[in-house]
C-alpha cells in the first residue's frame, strides 16, 4: 500500500485509536470513584423539589444499568461500549424522562455553529495577518497587530471571556451578554430573529477569536519568514514575478500545510475553549448543558456529553486529515 490508500488507512487507524482511548478514559474515570455513584446521583438529582417514589425507583434502575454496576468488570466494560455504539445514554436525571440524546441533539448545533464560524475566522485571519507580517517584516501596523494578538494569546479563554463580559456588560453595555437569541422571540426565519442570533453570538465568537488569533499569527509568521529565504523565492523575485503572486502562491501556499495539521491537532483545545466561553455567555450549547448537568447531579447527561465530545472532536479531526491530501499533492503522489 502506498500513496493515498496508506495515508487513508493510517488516518482511519488513528481515528479509531482516539475514540478507543477516549472512551476508555471515560470508563476508567467513572469506575475509579470511591463513593456509591447511584445513591449520590439520586440524592443530588432529587435535592430540589419532590419526586415520586416510582420515578426514583425507575431512576435507580436506569442508573444501575447506566453505571453498569451489574455483573463483573468485564461485563460492565462491554455494556459501556454497547451504550456508546448505540448512542443511548438513557434518560436524563435532571430533565427526567427526556433522553440524554435529545438534550445533546438540541445543544450540539449551537456549539458546532459557534465553533465553525470562530475557527474559520481565527484561522483565516491569523494566517493571513501572520503571512503578511512574515513577508513584510518592516510594516509598523502589522507589528502592532502582532503584539496585540500575542498579548491575548497566553490568557485562558475564561479570563478573556470574563473581561469581555465586564467591558460589554457593565462598562459599555451595547451587546447582549447572555443567551443565544432574545428571550421570548419566536424561532422562525425572520430578519429580526437572525439579527438577534448574530448579535448574541458576537461576544462568544470575539472571545474565541481573540484567544486563538495569536497562535496562528505567530506560527504563520515564523513559517513564512523561513520560506522567504528559500532559493526559489529569491529566484522568483529576480525573475520579476509580481510580489502579490509570490506571496500567495509561492510562499503562503507552502507555509499553509503545517498550519492545517496544526488545526487538526489543536481542535480539542479549541473545543475546550468553546464550551467554557458558552458557559460564561450563557450560550445554549454543549458547554452550558455540561455545567448545568454537573450542578444538577445528572450523571447520564455528563457521561453522554463527554462521550459525544470525544466522538465529535475525533470526527472533525478525521475530516481535516482527509482534506489534507487535496491541499498537499505530495501525499497523493507518494
Amino acid at each position, binding site marked *: 500500500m502506498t500513496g493515498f490508500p496508506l495515508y487513508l488507512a493510517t488516518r482511519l*487507524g*488513528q481515528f479509531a*485509536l*482516539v475514540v478507543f*482511548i*477516549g472512551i476508555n*478514559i*471515560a470508563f476508567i*474515570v*467513572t469506575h*475509579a*470513584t*470511591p*463513593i456509591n*455513584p447511584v445513591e*449520590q446521583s439520586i440524592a443530588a438529582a432529587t435535592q430540589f423539589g419532590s419526586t415520586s417514589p416510582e420515578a426514583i425507583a425507575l431512576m435507580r434502575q436506569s442508573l444501575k444499568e447506566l453505571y453498569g454496576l451489574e455483573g463483573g468488570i468485564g461485563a460492565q466494560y462491554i455494556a459501556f461500549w454497547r451504550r456508546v455504539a448505540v448512542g443511548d445514554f438513557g434518560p436524563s436525571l435532571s430533565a427526567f424522562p427526556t433522553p440524554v440524546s435529545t438534550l445533546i441533539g438540541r445543544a450540539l448545533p449551537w456549539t458546532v455553529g459557534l465553533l465553525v464560524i470562530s475557527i474559520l475566522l481565527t484561522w483565516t485571519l491569523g494566517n493571513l495577518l501572520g503571512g503578511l507580517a512574515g513577508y513584510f517584516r518592516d510594516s509598523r501596523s502589522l507589528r502592532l497587530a502582532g503584539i496585540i494578538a*500575542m*498579548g491575548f*494569546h*497566553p*490568557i*485562558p*479563554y*475564561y*479570563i478573556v471571556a*470574563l*473581561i469581555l463580559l*465586564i467591558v460589554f456588560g*457593565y462598562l459599555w453595555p451595547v451587546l447582549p451578554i447572555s443567551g443565544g437569541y432574545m428571550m421570548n422571540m419566536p424561532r422562525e426565519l425572520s430578519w429580526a430573529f437572525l439579527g438577534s442570533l448574530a448579535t448574541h453570538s458576537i461576544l462568544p465568537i470575539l472571545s474565541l477569536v481573540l484567544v486563538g488569533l495569536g497562535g496562528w499569527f505567530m506560527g504563520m509568521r*515564523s513559517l513564512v*519568514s*523561513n520560506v522567504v529565504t528559500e532559493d526559489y523565492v529569491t529566484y522568483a523575485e529576480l525573475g520579476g514575478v509580481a510580489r502579490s503572486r509570490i506571496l500567495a502562491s509561492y510562499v503562503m501556499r507552502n507555509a499553509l500545510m503545517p498550519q492545517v495539521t496544526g488545526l*487538526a*491537532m489543536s*481542535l*480539542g*483545545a479549541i*473545543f*475546550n475553549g468553546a*464550551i*467554557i466561553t458558552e*458557559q460564561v455567555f450563557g450560550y445554549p450549547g454543549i458547554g452550558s448543558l*455540561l*455545567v448545568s448537568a*454537573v*450542578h444538577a447531579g445528572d*450523571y447520564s447527561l*455528563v*457521561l453522554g*456529553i*463527554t462521550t459525544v*465530545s*470525544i466522538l465529535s*472532536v*475525533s470526527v472533525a*479531526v478525521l475530516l481535516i486529515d482527509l482534506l489534507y491530501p487535496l491541499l498537499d499533492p505530495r501525499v497523493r503522489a507518494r
Partner: protein
Amino acid sequence: MWTVLRDLLRHNRQFAVGVVLLAVVIGFAALSLVSPYPPNDSFVVPPDVPPSLAYPMGTTSRGQDVFWLLTFSIRNTLLFGITVAVLSRLLALTIGLVAGYSGGLIDRALMSLNDTFIVIPLFPILVLFYFVMRDHMSWGLLALMMACLGWAYDARLIRSMAMSLRQREFTDTAIFSGMSMRQILIGEHLPYVLPIVFSTTMNNINWSIGLEVTLSVLGFTDINTPTIGVLIYWANQHTAMVAGIWWWILFPVLLVVITFVGLFLLAVSMNEHIDPRSRLGRIT
C-alpha cells in the same frame, strides 16, 4: 548558564520584562508567609470595604482582606502549575526520548498514543472526573490527573529532537562503548533537550493554571483551598460584579493575567534564544 541568563536579561527585552513580571508575582506569593490572617478565616475584617490605605485591595463580602487572600491564592495557583509541569515533564521526557531513540514500531506506537492525547478534549473529561469524585476531589488529585493528560505536545517535540540526536556520531560511540539505553538517554541526550524543555515548561504551567482557574471558577474543584479560580468563584457566588464589589474580581484577574504574560514572555524569549536562526535575525 549564568552568563546566558545575564546576556538574556541585558539584550532580550521580552525576557527582561517576563522576569520582572514573574518576580512581582512570586514576591507577592511570598508575602503569604507573613499574612496576619489564615487563608480560610472569614469575617476578620469589615466586609465590602473598597480599596483604601488600610485595605489596599479592599475586602470581600465574606470579610476577608483581598490583598492577603490573594497572596495565598496566587501561591497555591503557582504551586499547582509547577506540580503539573514537573510531573508531566517526567512523562513527556521519558516517552519522547524513548520514542525518538528506539524508532520503528515502538516510536510509532508511542506517537499514535501521543497524537491521541493531543486530540482528546480534556475539559469534559476533567469535568466528568470531578463529577464522580465530588468531595474527594483534592488539589493533588487534580494535578495528577492533569499531568497524565497534558504531556503530549512536548513529548512530540522532544521525540523529534531525540531522533536527530540518535543520528549523531556520539550516540554511536556511546553504543559501541557499551552504554545501556538508559545511560545514553539520561547522560547523553537529556542535556541536549533540557533547554527546550525549560521553555515548554512555562507554556505548560500556563496551560495548567488556565484549566485550574476555569475549573475552580465553575466550582469543579476543591473550593476550600484558596486559588485564583476559587477566589473568583466565591466572588461570583456573592454576585460581586452586580453588587459593585469590582475589586474582588479585578485584582485576581489582573494578577493572573500578569502571571500568564510573564510566563509566556519567558517561554517565547527562551525559545528564540535556543533557535540560532531567530537569534541571528535579532542581531542583523
